[in-house]
């Protein structure tokens, strides 16, 4: 078990810089999720931690060991690949035991470890099959089992759920959470799915353009994003960003009588979570569309000169919504508009 500490990490492919000075601390036993749009460098960061990418600069520590110059074999990390990367010519049993076999452990010890993991993951009956004869979910579990059997200090997951169907994905998500609790190891998990990110993580890391945009507990990122980018990335539907003006003390939005404290001067974004808005009949904007989602309705409100505003309403609480409305908000964050 170990904490993970990254300082000034840079990775370049030729002239292109993929990671550009990443600083990141993950506490021992934490569940960290790396998220960001494609091309933000999240997979590269994971692979750099694994030792599959060679950093151009910076340091990586696992616990108090500096590992950035070590080969992947020597780092004591395990990785679950997006493709699972099961050895197609080996049985499930050998796939699970390969890492121990490589370390030269005695046969009996390997068998015991493999069977213990197989029991945990419900793979007992599949041990003698080849990967080609497994379903997608089973392969995913073999891939996880292969990581677990080694008891590494850090587990790395590269979009482990992306190849599963939605029903299975929810199940595996819960299994992952339980697994994390049971193993107590440090998990680093890459995803592009904000729901997955909020559901699983103790620490959420948003990457943008090869840098860490914001890192912290998921609630902190949800409630108090520090940039428009993070604000839009976390939460579904994403946070509404309304153009406003700051005077150094407060910020105002055209047509609203509320002001929000901020030290910023000039154009700002006033960010409002769709779930933290309510609608009353009025004239600020017009209802453009209403989507019924079962437990809730998402109402889109338009006002000339403003981006469309999404409002999430508890379905049972309100009647018909149409025509002119006023928008009232419980809470907002003010962010710099560049």
């Amino acid at each position, binding site marked *: 078990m170990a904490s993970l500490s990254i300082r000034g990490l840079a990775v370049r492919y030729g002239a292109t810089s993929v990671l550009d000075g990443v600083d990141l601390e993950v506490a021992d036993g934490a569940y960290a999720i790396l998220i960001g749009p494609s091309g933000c460098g999240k997979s590269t960061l994971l692979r750099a931690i694994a030792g599959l990418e060679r950093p151009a600069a910076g340091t990586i520590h696992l616990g108090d060991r500096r590992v950035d110059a070590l080969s992947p074999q020597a780092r004591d990390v395990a990785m679950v690949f997006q493709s699972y990367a*099961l050895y197609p010519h080996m049985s499930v049993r050998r796939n699970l035991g*390969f890492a121990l076999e490589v370390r030269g452990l005695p046969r009996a010890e390997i068998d015991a470890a493999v069977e213990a993991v197989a029991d945990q993951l419900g793979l007992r009956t599949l041990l003698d099959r080849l990967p080609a004869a497994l379903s997608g979910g089973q392969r995913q579990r073999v891939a996880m089992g292969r990581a677990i059997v*080694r008891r590494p200090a850090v587990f790395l997951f590269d979009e482990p759920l992306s190849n599963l169907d939605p029903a299975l994905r929810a199940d595996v998500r819960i299994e992952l959470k339980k697994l994390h609790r049971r193993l107590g190891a440090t998990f680093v998990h890459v995803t592009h799915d904000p729901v997955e990110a909020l559901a699983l993580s103790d620490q959420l890391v948003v990457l943008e353009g090869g840098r860490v945009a914001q890192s912290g507990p998921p609630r902190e990122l949800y409630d108090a994003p520090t940039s428009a980018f993070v604000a839009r990335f976390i939460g579904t539907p994403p946070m509404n960003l309304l153009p406003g003006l700051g005077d150094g003390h407060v910020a105002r939005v055209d047509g609203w009588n509320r002001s929000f404290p901020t030290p910023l001067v000039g154009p700002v974004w006033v960010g409002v979570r769709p779930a933290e808005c309510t609608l009353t009949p009025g004239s600020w904007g017009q209802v453009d569309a209403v989507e019924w989602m079962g437990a809730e309705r998402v109402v889109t409100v338009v006002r000339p000169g403003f981006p469309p505003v999404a409002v999430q309403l508890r379905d049972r609480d309100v009647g018909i919504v149409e025509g002119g409305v006023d928008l009232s908000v419980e809470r907002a964050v003010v962010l710099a508009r560049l």
Partner: protein
Amino acid sequence: MKPVSLPMALAVHGALLIAAVVALYPVAWVLAMAVSVGPVTGVVPWPTEPTWTHLAGLARGDVAAALVTSIVVATSAALAGLAFSVTAAWALARFDFPGRDLTLAGFVATQTFPGVVMAVPLYLMLDALGLLDRLLGLVLVYAATSIPFSVWTLKGWFDGLPKDLEEAAMLDGAGRFRTFFSVLLPLLRPALAVTGVFCFLNAWNEYVLAATLLSDPRAFTLPVVLQRSVGDYGADWGAFAAGSIVASLPVIVLFFALQKHFIGGLTAGAVKG
């Protein structure tokens, strides 16, 4: 599976049938020549004046010995060629080291030089190494001449193999040797089979170098012995044809023995399914 229409199936089978007839026709001439006294003429390759002399002549000691020699030489050359090239192919496909592109280009360059000019220098080279007239020398020459092709072919297969498997093996703690032998080699079986057959045939049918480099009749390979029936004044085509049939049999056997590898999936189950 998508059902196939009857006309389509008939057309494809018809085309295959025509191809098979075209492939067989000259071979049938060889067969007819092998059991005829004189040359075979006409449209139908049927023996004129049938005889078993040519086939019986194969029982001569030198043909049998040459057959064994050829099998030993071609098999060793194929194995050595594969061993040399599969490691190089992996390194060239995966590692980024100085001189990599140059090495690749160098392998191709060696293939572009017409063999016509190579026999004599090779002779001098083997003479200098003391390998002249030794089967080891011939094996090395055949292995070396098939390496460039093998490297290129195998590199193509490595390029097509998902990198994940090697990375997974690295993370599992396997070193390069372990990754190579436990993970990659088993996966590359079809490629090794195809390339191995090529290396084998390259050595099996080669005549010019063998005839130039070997002077000890005990070391003669089959093509050299067969070619002896072609002289300055005419040739004994019947004997040549009979010998050619013998020479083709191991190739056919080899192809059959390895054919499941040609067809077996390369990466079935390796990636998401």
